């Protein structure tokens, strides 16, 4: 069946709500409004106000409440409208969700899933276009996921809810309308990265909203007879270094694509891991295609110029391939 990323998320959420009474969805406008990105549209009537819980504008408060509810035996799915507003909730996410298990010497766990939309590309300007995945990927105690395909959108929530510890899921806002076939087996591994397109000459490593761009770049390169592999990180923490190293060990060349700003990016971590694991197999220094170091501008031509784009990825691949 051919469905959208949004629909895949909806199927995953509905399944979770139907299969486990401990699961509930909480966040701003997830209920009566239908969800900012319409992911929970109709759920309010289906599951009621207790399980599809609209919250006031209190990011720190309701995220903390989600953590407390997880401590109390529930399996909350907390939706933060976008990563931009998660800045208001970071204290609870880092100092409570990520640390409670450790500070209690392993006594308490926080089986919480936090979903948030991320990324730029819709001319929403600087305050509404952040990509802060690497901030989260830096924190021990959190698992960080970035579904970039219909299968992952459909399959990641169940294992995330089964995880006894906090899981943060980043949904790139540009992906919600993406459509694809949903295979019968959409089960999903939240430990490993995935090779989305096998290739031999270079590894293009991306995640989230950059994966479709990386695949388009691979197609463009293929038209010129250049065969590159596309690796989707999928799990931003803990990083699946084995898959990355195996790929780069084969191709000897790497391009890392990240919508985050270059300095201090997740792409830097991937480059560091590549160097630590396959320095002697590298035929060229790994290249990074990240967002330019400027707050995301409103004007379309400027926003486009600030973000990773297919031509930039193609150029970077040609550079590491020196063709």
């Amino acid at each position, binding site marked *: 069946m051919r469905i959208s990323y949004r629909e895949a998320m909806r199927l995953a959420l509905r399944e979770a709500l139907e299969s486990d009474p401990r699961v509930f969805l909480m966040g701003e*406008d997830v209920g*009566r409004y239908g969800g900012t990105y319409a992911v929970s549209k109709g759920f309010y009537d289906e599951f009621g106000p207790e399980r599809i819980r609209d919250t006031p504008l209190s990011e720190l408060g309701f995220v903390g409440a989600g953590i407390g509810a997880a401590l109390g035996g529930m399996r909350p799915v907390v939706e933060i409208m976008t990563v931009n507003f998660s800045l208001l909730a970071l204290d609870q996410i880092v100092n409570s969700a990520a640390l409670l298990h450790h500070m209690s010497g392993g006594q308490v766990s926080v089986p919480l899933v936090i979903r948030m939309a991320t990324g730029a590309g*819709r001319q*929403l300007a600087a305050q*509404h276009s952040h990509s802060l995945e690497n901030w989260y990927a830096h924190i021990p105690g959190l698992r960080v996921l970035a579904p970039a395909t219909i299968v992952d959108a459909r399959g990641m929530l169940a294992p995330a809810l089964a995880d006894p510890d906090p899981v943060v899921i980043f949904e790139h806002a540009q992906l919600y309308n993406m459509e694809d076939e949903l295979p019968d087996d959409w089960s999903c591994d939240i430990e490993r990265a995935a090779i989305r397109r096998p290739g031999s000459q270079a590894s293009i490593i991306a995640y989230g909203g950059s994966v479709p761009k990386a695949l388009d770049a691979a197609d463009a390169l293929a038209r010129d007879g250049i065969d590159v592999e596309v690796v989707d990180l999928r799990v931003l923490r803990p990083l699946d270094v084995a898959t990355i190293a195996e790929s780069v060990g084969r191709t000897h060349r790497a391009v890392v694509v990240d919508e985050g700003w270059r300095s201090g990016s997740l792409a830097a971590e991937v480059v560091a891991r590549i160097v630590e694991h396959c320095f002697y197999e590298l035929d060229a220094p790994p290249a990074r295609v990240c967002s330019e170091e400027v707050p995301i501008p*409103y*004007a379309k031509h400027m926003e486009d110029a600030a973000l990773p784009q297919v031509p930039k990825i193609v150029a970077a691949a040609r550079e590491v391939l020196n063709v």
Partner: protein
Amino acid sequence: MNATKRKPKAAAAERSLPLQLLADMLRIRRLEEKCAELYGAQKIRGFLHLYIGEEACATGATHALAADDNVVATYREHGHALLRGVPMDTIMAEMFGKAAGCSRGRGGSMHLFDAARRFYGGNAIVGGGLPLAVGLALADRMQGIRRVTACFFGEGAMAEGAFHEGMNLAALWRLPVLFLCENNLYAMGTALMRSESQTDLCVKAASYKVPTLRADGMDVLAVNEAVRKAAAEVREGAGPFFVELQTYRFRAHSMFDPELYRDKVEVEAWKERGPIHNFSAKLKAAGELTEEAFLALDAEAEAEVAHAVAFAEAAGWEPVADLLRHVTSGEAQR
């Protein structure tokens, strides 16, 4: 083509306050109706939050402020920016993303700025403006400047910690902040009663020992009177003041909102209280306004909008080569 308001300014001089209030509400209304149209035509992109139905709030309030007072607003700030003197031409150009825009096309609809006019912007973080307003007022106090900092925000922002911390700081330090809450009953799809345990917003504000006033946000004169009183006290150094303006948003929250959360009957009932329609009717009944005069004001607003659109259309794009500028002032000065 250069960015200036023509007729209105000139005309404004001779006009009585009521007529100027009406004219300004019309300017906001016609501007935003055109914005909605241009959004459909994809000339304007991103988020667009219309103020249609709420014009009496910004109009009554800004006419109660002094020219050099500070103003901090939200992402629903087209009207506030316009009435603080930001030329409609540069507002429209900003929404087009043109370099001649009031924020150089970097900000868009949610980030209209005008430093010279002390308009500290559109802010797309709900509640984000309150602490900034507290700081602006603190700066004035420390520099011995007798100025009011007016801070507009929606009722939904009152659930944010930023509201709590900002109100307490302003009250504790007795700073000249005029808190103007535009209570349109909804925060996106969330009704006030589902957002606050205490729905009497003045009671909430009073708990910080801040004096409060409530006004009919659909009646521009009532708003103007309440804000004048409050601003006068703040200017006197009595500390912050909180004014609740009870109003209603006639359009969707943004251009993406299916409006599943409120029924048409409620919307229609509020539309009966349309601030422009009712105020002009009142002025006519009082013999202060003729239909011809009304049409003239409307035509003037339409002309200003037409000029703004032409200006925005004609304006140029910022060169991509300048992408990395305006990240820091140092670079901007290059």
